[in-house]
């Protein structure tokens, strides 16, 4: 019992970390985007303010049970992914390292891929129940795009798996520590494919038709306000952080301490953000076909590379 309590506390700590970092990133990105667009942009802590405001709202509307469950599903996904992904490298010996192990040994990459789709699906269903056609349109676009980027993403992962004969994230980190080479250098094609997939995963331009901020009222998220939007926002931030950590774990050898973690994730995060700021938007089918074009080819190269070497 005590053990479980400690575990729960540790998980909460992980969540809080992810929440803070993720929210901050969101704010920073908004700021950077503003600057690049030659506007002032909101302050970096704007997201916290938004979240606090949403959280404080006591009035709201809902459209039924699934509306509730959608948000809950999203949160489940974020949290469980966060628990599966090792936040810090197993080699690092900081005193708080063991806080962040959580469920690291209970799932592997394939598990992660699947659990990560749980949330979007849940949210999609929540959006579906609202009855807002725009929500559903956003959902179909989002799911279509997911089919697009999943292919290079999985190819990159498979390339790694066949080289190192494991699917466990922890093992990948150990391997990088032992060999001293980051996997992004060991199999550059895999890294490129994964990063290209990441562009779609984070839904920044040119792959932001899902949210489509201008034409539609924010796609799946429309009709959500107050606690629902707060839950979505926070779980989105946590999820973003989790994904970044996953990339770092897989390709950049993980982080030995929190500073390195923040640095690495932030740098990685800048790739889609900066690419997105300067890109126009793809239509869904264009986006999907784009993913099935070059990224997939690079993914194939990655697998070929893995098989050959």
């Amino acid at each position, binding site marked *: 019992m005590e053990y479980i309590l400690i575990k729960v506390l540790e998980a909460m700590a992980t969540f809080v970390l992810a929440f803070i970092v993720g929210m901050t990133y969101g704010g920073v990105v908004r700021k950077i985007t503003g600057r690049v667009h030659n506007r002032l942009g909101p302050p970096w802590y704007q997201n916290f303010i938004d979240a606090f405001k949403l959280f404080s709202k006591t009035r709201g509307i809902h459209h039924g049970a699934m509306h509730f469950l959608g948000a809950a599903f999203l949160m489940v996904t974020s949290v469980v992914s966060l628990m599966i992904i090792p936040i810090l490298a197993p080699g690092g010996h900081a005193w708080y390292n063991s806080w962040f192990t959580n469920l690291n040994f209970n799932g592997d990459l394939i598990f992660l891929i699947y659990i990560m789709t749980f949330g979007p699906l849940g949210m999609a269903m929540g959006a*579906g129940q609202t*009855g807002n056609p725009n929500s559903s349109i956003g959902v179909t676009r989002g799911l279509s795009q997911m*089919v697009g980027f999943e292919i290079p993403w999985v190819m990159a992962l498979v390339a790694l798996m066949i080289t190192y004969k494991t699917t466990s994230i922890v093992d990948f980190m150990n391997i990088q520590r032992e060999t001293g080479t980051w996997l992004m250098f060991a199999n550059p094609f895999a890294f490129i494919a994964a990063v290209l997939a990441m562009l779609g995963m984070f839904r920044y331009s040119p792959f932001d038709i899902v949210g489509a901020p201008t034409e539609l009222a924010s796609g799946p998220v429309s009709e959500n306000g107050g606690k629902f939007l707060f839950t979505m926002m926070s779980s989105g931030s946590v999820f973003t952080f989790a994904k970044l950590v996953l990339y770092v774990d897989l390709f950049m050898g993980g982080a030995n301490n929190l500073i390195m973690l923040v640095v690495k994730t932030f740098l990685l995060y800048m790739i889609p953000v900066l690419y997105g700021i300067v890109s126009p938007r793809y239509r869904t089918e264009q986006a999907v076909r784009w993913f099935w074009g070059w990224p997939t080819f690079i993914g194939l190269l990655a697998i070929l590379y893995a098989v050959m070497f």
Partner: protein
Amino acid sequence: MLTLILLLFLGGAIVTWLGNKLSPVVGDLLFLATIIIPAGMFFTGVTVGEVTHLHALGLTLTWGLTPLSYLFSMIVVGLGILLAIYAVPFMKGKQKTGAFYFNFTLSVMSMLGILVSKDWVSFFIFWEIMTWSSYLMVVLNGKDVQRVGIKYFVFSAIGAYAMLMAMVIMNSQLGSFLLADTFNNFQHLTTGNQILIPILLLVAFGVKSAMMPLHVWAPDAYSNAPMAYTGLFSGALSKMGIYGMVLVMVTMINQLPEGTLIRDIIAWIGGFTAAAATLWAITQDDGKKLLAWSSVGQMGYIIVGVAIGTPLAMLAAMFLVVVHAMFKGSLFMVVGAIEKQTGTTNFTEINGLIRKMPWTFISALISVIALAGIPPLAGFVSKWMLYEALIQNNNYILVILLFFASTAGFLYCYKFLHGYFLGQEEPEWAHVKEAPVAMVIPMVLLALGNFVLGTFPQLIFKPIDAAMQFAGYDATGGRLWGESVLFTEWGDVVTLQPILYAVLAVFVFFALFLWFKGTKGTRYVSTKDISTSGELPKEWENLTFKVNFMQPFERAIEPFLKRQIDKYYTAFGNGMEALFEFTRRIHTGNGQTYAIYAILFLALLLLFRVNLFG
């Protein structure tokens, strides 16, 4: 005992049919009794290894259960009982109830028969009974009979005849119809036959398991049959193909030097089946069709697993066989319930049933999540093992294909749920009520089964392990799976229980959080009360988004959608019919011409006399 059970089914089928002529109620009762009594006898009275011999025409028919067939027969019987309970309210007030009961019972009987057959003759007999009884189900509603029904029967017949050919060749070469003999003495066949026979058998089983390019019958047939039957059709009947395929794979193909090649080919075919069927499923606007294509796709996964044939892959395939029967059975029941309550199954017509049919929705939700392979439900277990197996077996590209299929599968999963239950709640469907209890209970039970198996797969792994040991695999317990744990030989692990608890805990926490947070201030509003783009929609505005639901994705896969195998078959069929039409005109109708034919034939024979008779 086996004979008695099969006879009970057969006699029951006839009695039910007759009883239904008397009065529908008698028919219902007899039907339930016919299914449940022998099924109960099967569960209680039949032991693995018991053998019965029958004699016909100088051939010995041998019946008995093996651990492998026991696994499958549990699906058949279990699903049979649940669907039988479901079918009674489903068929109430419908036409041809008697025929339905008759064919349903016969289907169950024939499937059990296939599974207990230890020789090819009885295997084939039951196989054909299964074919025609299911065929009569497919055409039962009289819709598009000539196209759908004939297509199903032609493909079934091609498969069955391939099997027939294979079995008579084996009999003539090996002198035995016994499955065991033909498998054990496979090496004694000539090289040509060693290739020919497995291919013929694979065609036979491939047709039933809807393997590409022999799948074209499946979507139409599945969707055309009464929904109370389709669960059995897709859940159990198509598994007979898998059963046969397992037999062939583990025995014959293993003994072939070219075995690996054949395995790879079949696996690729399975992969393509999964991917293509998924894409087609996405484009469907009818829930039946969608599920039908989805079934084809799922069979593709199973075929991949069986074809790869490593212990892990086989384990995955077998697990998926069981689980697919559960979630697909449940989903077809859902569609049936919706059809029963609303009269249609088209997504573009139905909206927002979630609040009218909550239990149906819950079973649909759970089953769909299982179908999508998302943890912690049962579908995930098989998917995980399958991917691991493929990667470990160096099928890298194939695994990508399956990943793609599975990801694309989310689209139709969502489409299914959204199509029926979500979206605008139109007043048109305000009158719809929840389905009768007898229909809800079976589907909820099946859905819950997915939930249980997702975390405690060892419940099913145990019989699967027994079956696999029978099929010549080493014991996999503790090596590839444990109590709620999945392993691989690489050392990858998924522990299911903690994850389930984590998921449940987080889920409950946030659900409660969302519920209590400002409960008083949160009120329910109807789906009409929304804001689109910040504006309140007008009264006349169409808020229902159903038509061209997946248009963006369909546009993306447009080049694929243009190529339908069905079209090629149709072209082939038309060509054949034209040829037939030409051929039959040999009989010109002029008696004189016939006489000339006779003289022509005489002249020919006389001319070739030397060639013919020396």
